[in-house]
């Protein structure tokens, strides 16, 4: 029982971690929007267009930024061709630091570097799915692909834990893409990691970013829609708090169950001691000290709780496995597993439970007077 609960707690934790597995949790994302309040004589409803200058201001002006990248989105669907193979893929034009924001794993070649951006190099890093679709077994690094008719040289292949969709992407240097696909200096999104900055600092950083952008694009600091600054640190902290609460609750319920179990075993042992009064008397007559009688009863008590507990453990793991299989993937309840640590803790708990449960019966047994025990027919 305890195990099912503990496992569920673990599962919930896994679920949350899984939701965040793709992207760095210590990150701030900036999305442009439309103004929603009038400001300095300007009408609401203006689109805010972020540019490279905004990126630079945040990158150099805001303290605590660890890695930063912008994204530029190419309009319309993007045709990608290698020799005779053509297919549509999702193309992202980014800075080299994007690697850290998406937890991208380079499996072949390299990721984009600062020189690619500075020199507007026509290079591309492709996902493993892209590689499979276009190149089959051929090594892709060094080959040329066409993106909407513009030739790019593949310099690397990446994988990503974020799932299938992430692997169907192609990364291009942001500067190259802006120039080749008519983006000028426009960017669609800014994202950054905040390193080890504490939660309050990241909140302050988010506020500062919002303030600076408000000044640059002349909108009210109190306008929630003009630019959205999303601090993932806060979200993660909030959800973590909820999870912790749930885990504590689970533990309390579990301990309650355990306590009921202890009382039950204790009662069983008391009855056993009463029924075995004569045996205990005989043992004493044969030279058993009170101490050895106490040990005998404690041993048996621990045996009972261990066997019952082990059965519970097996049952609990079974239930969790079943739950894991039946649950829809991607839900907040994921991999409700019981690792070795939890199992060991549970075993230790069972032994302690056995000791506690056996304490009163053992004392009762040790107090048995052999004369009376042997008289009782």
């Amino acid at each position: 029982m305890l195990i099912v609960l503990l496992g569920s707690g673990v599962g919930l934790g896994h679920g949350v971690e899984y939701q965040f597995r793709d992207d760095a949790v210590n990150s701030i994302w900036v999305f442009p929007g439309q103004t929603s309040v009038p400001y300095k004589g300007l009408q609401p409803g203006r689109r805010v267009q972020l540019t490279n200058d905004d990126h630079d201001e945040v990158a150099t002006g805001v303290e605590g930024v660890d890695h930063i990248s912008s994204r530029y989105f190419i309009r319309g669907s993007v045709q990608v061709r290698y020799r005779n193979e053509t297919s549509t893929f999702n193309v992202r034009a980014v800075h080299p630091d994007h690697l850290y924001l998406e937890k991208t794993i380079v499996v072949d070649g390299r990721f984009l570097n600062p020189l690619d951006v500075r020199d507007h190099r026509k290079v591309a890093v492709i996902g493993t799915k892209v590689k499979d679709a276009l190149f089959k077994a051929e090594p892709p690094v060094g080959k040329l692909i066409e993106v909407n008719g513009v030739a790019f040289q593949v310099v690397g292949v990446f994988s990503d834990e974020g799932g299938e969709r992430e692997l169907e992407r192609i990364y291009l240097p942001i500067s190259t893409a802006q120039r080749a696909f008519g983006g000028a200096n426009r960017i669609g999104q800014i994202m950054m990691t905040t390193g080890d900055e504490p939660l309050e600092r990241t909140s302050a950083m988010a506020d500062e970013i919002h303030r600076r952008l408000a000044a640059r694009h002349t909108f009210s600091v109190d306008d929630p829609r003009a630019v959205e600054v999303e601090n993932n640190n806060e979200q993660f902290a909030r959800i973590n708090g909820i999870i912790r609460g749930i885990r504590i609750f689970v533990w309390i319920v579990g301990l309650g169950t355990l306590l009921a179990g202890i009382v039950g075993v204790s009662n069983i042992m008391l009855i056993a001691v009463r029924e075995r009064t004569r045996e205990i008397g005989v043992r004493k007559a044969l030279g058993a000290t009170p101490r050895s009688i106490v040990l005998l009863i404690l041993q048996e008590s621990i045996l009972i709780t261990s066997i019952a507990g082990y059965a519970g453990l097996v049952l609990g793991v079974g239930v969790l496995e079943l739950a894991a299989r039946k649950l829809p993937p991607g839900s907040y309840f994921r991999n409700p597993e019981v690792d070795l640590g939890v199992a060991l803790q549970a075993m230790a708990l069972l032994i302690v439970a056995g000791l506690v449960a056996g304490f009163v019966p053992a004392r009762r047994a040790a107090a048995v007077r052999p004369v009376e025990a042997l008289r009782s027919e």
Partner: protein
Amino acid sequence: MVSLEKIDKSYVTGSHRLHVLKAVDLEIESGEMAAVMGASGSGKSTLMNILGLLDNYDGGSYRLDGQLMRDLSETRAAVLRRQLIGFVFQSFNLIPFKTAAENVALPLYYQGLGRRRRQAAALEYLERVGLRDWATHRPSEMSGGQQQRVAIARALVARPKLLLADEPTGALDSETSHEIMELLQQVNREGVTVLVVTHERDVAAMTRRVIRLKDGRVEDAHARLPDA
């Protein structure tokens, strides 16, 4: 071996006080084999319990093997019991869920012997009572006489100096009683002091001395058996 001087023992039940043993004096030499006889309620079992350190006494003094037995802690009494005394009971008192061999080995467990040596000794003593082949049987599969022989093996396995048997034949037919008493005689010949409580004349006749109790007093410490 045993020396009792003015032993007093009363049981208090509620407001009622029952004087069971009244100034009992008794000497039993090492190597003796004696029967304790007396009417029901005369205090025979009480006397045996005191001799066996299962119960304490109110007054007088009890020396066992030269040592004064007075105000013993439970643990100390347990240690002395396991070193000096073996018990045989009327109702055998074997532990039902243990085999004959495990029952016999139990006192050695409390002496701290290893499993292998316990097992070997248990088989040796089962052999001596003629039950080697029954080693793996449980008490419920054995006759009363067999169970009592297992109990005797258990009482002897720790090599006690004093064997206390409270009505060992009380639950057995006369033929089996005779066998059991022959076994106890043999034990006595090997140097163990044996004390047997009994109501049966035939049983008492197989000992070398009869102690008569009456109303908590030793009426006769060297009684002659009444003629049948």
